[in-house]
């Protein structure tokens, strides 16, 4: 399967390289739309957001996972990043060292959800000890998605 580098990924999702060069200024809004599907092409896109930290503490940042997935071809790309600001007032400042590009390697539909497996090809985007293989579950019927963040499984809300 063709590897998709960071520049190509951002071209695919419509972000110019200038926005990426600064790293911390990567735009978190408008890269992709909400969860939407195209049966003719077998693709869907999604964007899921969760406040960090979760639990009792007020959220300080927003974890954003968004991607384009081709279910039929079992391919696609997903971006994960953490932006300053809670989900209701998220900034465009991506916290340094927490942005990752995931190349989709497998897609399975199960129990009304889509299980996505991917790999982070750019090892410089990995934290020490972090697995390059990424699991993401998107449940459009319930409007939620799940993926990992530093070893924790995070439930995220799909955005329309």
């Amino acid at each position, binding site marked *: 399967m063709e590897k998709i580098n960071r520049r190509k990924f951002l071209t695919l999702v419509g972000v110019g390289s200038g926005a990426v060069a600064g790293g911390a200024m990567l735009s978190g809004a408008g890269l992709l739309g909400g969860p939407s599907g195209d049966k003719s092409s077998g693709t869907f896109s999604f964007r899921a957001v969760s406040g960090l930290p979760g639990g009792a503490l007020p959220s300080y940042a927003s974890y954003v996972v968004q991607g384009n997935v081709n279910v039929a071809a079992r391919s696609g790309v997903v971006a994960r990043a953490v932006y300053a600001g809670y989900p209701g*007032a998220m900034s*465009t400042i991506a916290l340094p060292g927490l942005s990752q590009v995931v190349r989709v390697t497998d897609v399975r539909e199960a129990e009304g959800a889509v299980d996505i497996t991917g790999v982070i090809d750019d090892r410089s985007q990995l934290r020490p000890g972090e697995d390059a293989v990424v699991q993401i579950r998107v449940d459009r019927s319930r409007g939620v998605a799940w993926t990992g963040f530093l070893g*924790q499984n995070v439930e995220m809300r799909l955005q329309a």
Partner: protein
Amino acid sequence: MMGYIQPSDGPPGQTGKGGEGMADHLDEPNLSPPGGDPSIDITDVYAFKKGNKKKSTLMLNVNPLTLSSSFNHRALYQLAVDTNGDARADIAFNITFTRPHSSQKVKVRRATGDDAREDEVEGDVIISGPTDTVLTAGQFKLFAGRRSDPFFFDLLGFLAGFAFTGSDFFADKNVFGIALEVPNKALGQNPNVGVWGRTLLPEEDDHDDDHDDDLMQVERMGRPAINTVFMKGARKREFNRGKPHNDPAEFTGDVVTVLKSFGHSDAEAAGLAAILLPDILTYNYESGAGFLNGRNLTDDVIDIELGIVSKGAVTTDGVAAHTDLLGVFPFMGPPH
């Protein structure tokens, strides 16, 4: 005379070392891009005595991750000092900057009494000169410019719900530091003072540089973490626009809610909230003790907070003070 509640006045069972931890970086989304100006986003406030016993250093750091390239020439950066325990400023060090060209100049005015409480650039100039240079005028010293961020914290572990990674997110980050060394007598006769920082912007932009506009407070901070840890959603902005003397009435409920979620009883939570609010950094300039007496650059405020907020369940984030600190003014390490 009113006095600040000290840790020993806290609820039974406390260790006597109350506190809170995470600083103020990026806690005000309205100051972040797009549309905002990170150069007026306060990251930390410090007050400590180092070296000369008759002098104190007050520090107001802004511009997290140095997202902005200059200080805001339209803004007022203020270090407020309460000398009588009423949570209102009695002395204010008002700091302004010239428009950025190849470099900027900084000016500090000292205002007292009613002038210290105005949302205006008041006071007599005590020191001025170019940024990125240690300036001296009489008994005052000033530095304003890019420095290594002295704050240390495993931010990623915090975001992951206290799953600490042992890495200091801020170890290689910079801020814009404003360090002001003052003779203690410039902080008033009562050695027990309260210190907090504010940033203000003109309510309307008249596009001149005379600093005579009506200003509006957009950020404030006393002790580290109050806003970040205890204020939820839109309350963050309300807190940043608030005044310390209103804190107990307006924000105790927010603090109590978070503390109770970690298992504190009603009485414990209320007792701790009475220590944490008003959000003022209490400081006795005759004492060399660290946080909660002022705040040194090496004070591990995070570990103190973790123990308090989590009721002892989490005691450390596993990271320590930075090693690039200087032994002399302005004490913050050189920029990365």
